[in-house]
């Protein structure tokens, strides 16, 4: 039995399918991240789970029980919104106590639980503060405390930290991980920030155009992307995509980029499906090795450096292959200059190939 299960959920706004036949399962205690660009339907999915949106079709189960007929308040979920939703007419204590008060919990119990929650989020000294006097981080903590006291089956977090500045966001991210570890609660977390998703998530679901493109651990989505969208969305710096044509020779696979030939590489499956010959090579900047000068060796690619770039920690050179701009990481930026000749080879073990539909050729 899954703590949260979504089956074939579809939600249509006007003409647009915000969620298109989405299914997913979340296990007890999992930190599950919905990741995708703005407008991909991840928030809609979360809000459907909360009961704030009514899906057009599909079902949602919490702890094995369908919640489709239940009001948001009866679903045993708690939600944290993007905007601060602490009520300005209540102080911190009353805000955190609010869900308990609504449930009719007795005063002593409220006192105890709120005190515990405030201690867990490490702002016990703010209990009587007016919420206007809280810093951004403190307000977020108070909101987390309010979610905690509800003791729900699932925490729903809708881009909770996106309004914070970078430093605070990193800090709050660690906080939510600490609280997750301590309480073992199941979390469904929506974000458009892939770095954040990779760091906090046990499982990621990458969404695009209302559909889930891939579900997996952060490492799986990074190393074995299902398709081009996932490959370009996950990982920083972004993967390079180079159009190529496959050709077979003596049972070995070669890739033609423009007029140059790269290979051989071993891809048995591809040879079995010769119809998918128009390919895209996907390779991350750190999986490219470059050598200065025009190589004469067979099976490597030549190009010319267009410009160099350094972020301080990492150095990159940019060149063009098959009409695509390619970025490769280099150990020393000082070795390279504009219009240098460069010989390129890829780490063939990690090289990804995508078919014309964008699916990865496995």
């Amino acid at each position, binding site marked *: 039995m899954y703590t949260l299960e979504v089956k074939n959920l579809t939600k249509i706004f006007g003409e647009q399918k915000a969620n298109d036949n989405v299914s997913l399962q979340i296990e007890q205690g999992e930190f599950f991240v919905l990741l995708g660009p703005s407008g991909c339907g991840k928030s809609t999915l979360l809000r459907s789970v909360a009961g704030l949106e009514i899906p057009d079709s599909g079902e949602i189960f919490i702890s094995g029980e369908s919640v489709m007929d239940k009001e948001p*308040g009866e679903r045993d979920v708690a939600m944290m919104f993007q905007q601060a*939703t602490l*009520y*300005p*007419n*209540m102080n911190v204590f009353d805000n955190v106590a609010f869900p308990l008060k*609504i449930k009719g919990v007795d005063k002593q119990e409220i006192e105890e639980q709120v005190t515990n929650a405030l201690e867990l989020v490490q702002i016990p000294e703010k209990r009587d503060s007016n919420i206007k006097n809280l810093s951004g981080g403190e307000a977020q903590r108070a909101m987390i405390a309010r979610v905690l006291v509800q003791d729900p089956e699932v925490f729903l977090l809708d881009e909770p930290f996106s309004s914070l500045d970078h430093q605070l966001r990193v800090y709050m991210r660690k906080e939510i991980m600490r609280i997750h570890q301590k309480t073992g609660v199941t979390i469904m977390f929506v974000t458009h920030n892939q770095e954040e998703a990779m760091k906090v998530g046990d499982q990621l679901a990458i969404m695009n155009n209302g559909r889930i493109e891939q579900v997996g651990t952060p490492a799986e989505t990074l190393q074995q992307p299902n398709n081009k969208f996932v490959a370009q969305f996950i990982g920083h710096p972004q993967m390079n995509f180079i159009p190529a044509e496959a050709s077979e020779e003596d049972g070995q696979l070669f890739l033609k980029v423009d007029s140059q030939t790269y290979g051989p590489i071993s891809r048995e499956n591809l040879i079995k499906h010769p119809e998918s010959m128009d390919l895209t090579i996907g390779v991350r900047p750190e999986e490219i090795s470059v050598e200065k000068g025009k190589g004469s060796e067979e099976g490597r690619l030549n190009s010319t450096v267009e410009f160099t770039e350094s972020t301080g920690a990492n150095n990159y050179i940019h060149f063009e292959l098959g009409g695509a701009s390619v970025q490769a990481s280099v150990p020393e930026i000082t070795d390279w200059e504009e219009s240098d000749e460069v010989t390129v080879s890829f780490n063939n073990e990690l090289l990804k190939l995508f078919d014309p539909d964008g699916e990865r050729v496995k």
Partner: protein
Amino acid sequence: MAIKSRDRLLKYLVAPAVIFSFVAGVLPMLYALRNSFYNINVRLPMQTERFIGITNYRLILGDNRFQASLRNSIVFSLEGTIGAVLLGLAIALFLYYFLRNRPLLLTGLSTMLLIPALTGRISVAYIWRLLYDPVLGLINHVLGLLGFGTVEFLSNNNIAMQSVVFTDIWQWSGFAALFLYAGLVSIPREYFEEAQVIGASFFQRLRYIIIPNLKGLLLAVFLLKFMISLRNFDLISVMTGGGPGTATETVDMYLYWLAVGGRGLLSRASAGAIIMLVITIVSFMIIINLYQRQKVGE
């Protein structure tokens, strides 16, 4: 320097308004204040004006009919204001919960809600006098169809005041509703959604979220409506003329009668007007004070 001369220009520009309000508002008030200490009877034009101290105040405060009219004024203004604000809130909540996503219906209904407030008081008074009429009135006709006896809305001592108050509420609750609806829309939607996920009932939302977040606006609307209610001469004059007897006679009606209509006791009426002015100023100070404290709290 440029700023200074601009300031001077501004002073000149507001001067006409200041002068006008001084001549039309402050001077008559000061004149009334002066008159309230003299013995002036407009029915005895030959009488010499004589300073008589606070005699007028003593007489008017001891006047039963003045006391009754003061009570009527307060009842009318308070009931009318509270009624219009509460009914307005109910209408605003209805609009918010059921019509927020139907702009066409919302616009149409909002316009309709404003019509009573845009209609002149005298017209409203005549319309409702007709509606309430025991013989020709629509309300009694409907009551008759339902098997009830005729109700003398405006000539029954016990309900005349409530009938007039009801008309006042009818005229102004739509107006209040539009203000409060605007306030409701400005409450962040997430507050309601949060409450929804927490499982708060409608009344819990009303009590813990809506009322506290609308407090400032509720007070402002209260103040505005209270001001409108204090000017009730036209409505009540047309509907009941203060009757039956003096059951619906308010302070301004009585003072008018005292000075002009009946006995010509201009200076005693002036004393009554000054008393009313003081009461008004004090009650406004209290409400504004509450409003500002609310503002500071926000």
